[in-house]
């Protein structure tokens, strides 16, 4: 089947999509967007988090056909040209990145959290990111990064 949807602001059509394919597969294998990662295939780890019509979802759980006519935004679509989003900046600055495999999912999830809750409490951050597993960092620096990004986003407004 053909699936047509908007990815990172650009309208795209993909042909020969098998009905059983996930959005994650379409993004990674058919559209050359490897940012969202495949790490569990069952919505447990959050590594494949992308925006679907403005809401963060696990792309591994979304059937390709479900995105017909809708809008997807991936980690590749967060930076403004060469300028990193404050969330991306804060992750590098705070040392919240190690192996980097969970990072894109966490960045999209954080971006979504700050969009709906510009000044989250620590408990809200921990809860919001509890579905994004990280095996390297121990999460503390991720928390720092979210706080820093929040302060910069709030300050910039």
């Amino acid at each position, binding site marked *: 089947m053909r699936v047509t949807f908007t990815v990172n602001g650009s309208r795209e059509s993909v042909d020969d999509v098998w009905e059983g394919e996930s959005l994650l597969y379409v993004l990674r294998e058919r559209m050359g967007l490897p940012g969202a990662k495949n790490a569990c295939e069952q919505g447990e780890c959050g590594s494949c988090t992308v925006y679907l019509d403005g809401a963060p979802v696990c792309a591994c759980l979304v059937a390709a056909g479900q995105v017909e006519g809708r809008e997807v935004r991936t980690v590749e679509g967060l930076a403004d040209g060469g300028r990193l989003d404050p969330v991306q900046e804060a992750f590098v600055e705070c040392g919240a990145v190690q192996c980097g495999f969970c990072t894109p999912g966490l960045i999209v999830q954080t971006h979504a959290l700050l969009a709906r809750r510009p000044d989250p409490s620590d408990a809200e951050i921990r809860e919001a990111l509890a579905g994004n597993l990280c095996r390297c960092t*121990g999460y503390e620096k991720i928390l720092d990064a979210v706080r820093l990004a929040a302060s910069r986003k709030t300050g910039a407004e």
Partner: protein
Amino acid sequence: MTETIRARAMGRPLERLDGRDKVVGQAPYAYEQQVTDPLYLHPVQAVIARGRINAIDTADAESLPGVVTVLTHLNAPRLTGDGDGDDRELWVLQSDEVHFRGQFIGVVVAETSEIARHAADLVRVEYERWPHDVELSADRDDLYAPDKVNAGHDTDTDVGDVAAALADAPVVVDHTYRTPMEYNNPMEPHATVAVWDAGGLTMYDSTQGVHVVRQRLAPLFGLDPGHVRVVAPHVGGGFGSKGAPHAHNVLAGLAAQVTGGRPVKLAVTRQQMFSVVGHRTPTIQRIGLGAETDGRLTALVHEVVEHTSRIVEYAEQTAVVSRMMYAAPNRRTRHRLAALDVPVPFWMRAPGEAPGAFALEVAMDELAVACGLDPVELRIRNEPDVDPESGRPFSGRRMSECLREGARRFGWESRDPTPAARLRDGWLEGTGVAASVYPRIMQTGNRAWVRYGPDGRYEVGIGAVDIGTGTWTALTQIAADALEVPVEEVRLRIGDTDLPEAAVAGGSGGLSAWGSAVVGAARAFREKFGRHPSAGDEATGTAPESPAAEDFSMYSFGAQFAHVRVHADTGEIRVPRMLGVFTVGRVVNPRTARSQFVGAMTMGLSMALHEEAVLDPRFGHVVNHDLATYHIATHADVQDVDAIWLDEEDPRSNPMGIRGIGEIGIVGAAAAVANAVHHATGVRVRDLPITPDKLFH
């Protein structure tokens, strides 16, 4: 003593050089390497734990549109060699025998990964089932002593007369401790992309060591090592499980031989990882401590029973920690194995030390309680003057300082030792302490080159890898200091067997080995070309072992503190605070190092409270073989975790003065939590993980 390089970039919290690529999703991991017109692989796995394949029918799979071929033991290319020893794990599709459930018995090659997966389900297999056995127990009559245990340690040691010392000791603590089968679960599942053409085999692999993959695979495929290239610029974690190639690498190499040069891509699924990429063996450990009433140890017994696979012997060195940690004059250690029909166990972060120190450090807490002594004080009283195992002085052992500094920061002095005495708002509160240790390991055979480029920058090459530890950044800092130039003038190249031979990122020894080679190359370069080289000048250097290694015992140490709250009604366990104080030689990059320490401590928290793979004895598989049911600590489980380190360098270790940091943070962390749970509740849990059911008797 080696001549150390002057620290200018080292010690600075340089931001991760690979950080930008990772936050925009552009750092290429193995599966994302651009290759032309690839085919996709999906393995077929055995659904019995032991037996023989009588028939394997691939007709339905092969008739599926998009399927190129299905390889099984009947038609797969033959491997070279005799398939003995460690190669038995890699000896896939070479015979009809099944040695563990989940073993690869076939692979589908198809135009898409979805088609390959679908086709793999269509392969029909008839088995001759043989009885299997996957149950570990300490009273099996077939336990045996391996010749050696992992990392070349002796299997057993005996010093003095333990039996007499235990019989005479006024205080004796003697218990059995258990740790479960655990899985590394790096976030990036193992993946490989293989290309077989006239030039040989190229493999883009998710590995902790490109050279070890080449060294193990080249002979299996009958190739000269020079015709095997392994590339790994970015790796999404490993924690030991990517320290050697596994069966999927061989599967990809076999498949790549039959595609007429088209690349093949194989991503191991999370579920498959529970069968084919290693795990931490479960352990049953007896610790017997004899002591004077003042807490001074007179006897230490550490006897370990653990499993290995029937096909490859992996003997974890669980009791070695008890050979050098405390000054007990009489000591005995034992390792006994049960060879079972289980997947091949392998390294998981701090193999040996992590489960071994859990048992030893909980036992030490029990001894403190038995002697009425503060557990910090008990450990300080048992600090040895020299390494009890080798008799050599330590290059540095500031264990007592770690304990005292941690106690001061943690507010330990006001601690009431009475267990189960602090009930606040329905939560029982407690604190615990444990010691950490990890050996300084120097892997040999490393080389590096330095080239001066036309752009005025120094290119530094070595086949090291960055599995998330920060190699790109920290090794650049070392190179800059070795060349005495700013980091901006260094361009590091790693992650490719086209670069000089490098050790695996393992044993907390990657940076020590690679950094030493880089320093060797920089010194050779300066000697040859001085301070003003010309474009194209190049020199190679090696990493000799430090001469002090013969005279000194080298370990890193630490003290870990944990504060827990246990819900009095439900047994829910929360860990509001963990603190680690470490002595590790120099820290090259505080930003990446802190993340390593805190991440490892969190993995220790996870080991304490969550991680347990459950083997079903009837079928021989891990029941909870995914991230939905094999639980690891999440963001909501972690609260305040902090790590600090003593300011120092260890010039006896290497020219950087470092001893390695990747693993020590997990050692002792689970014990600190377990000891805090006892302090909170009065319940001593000796069987990980500490789940609420174990708190109610």
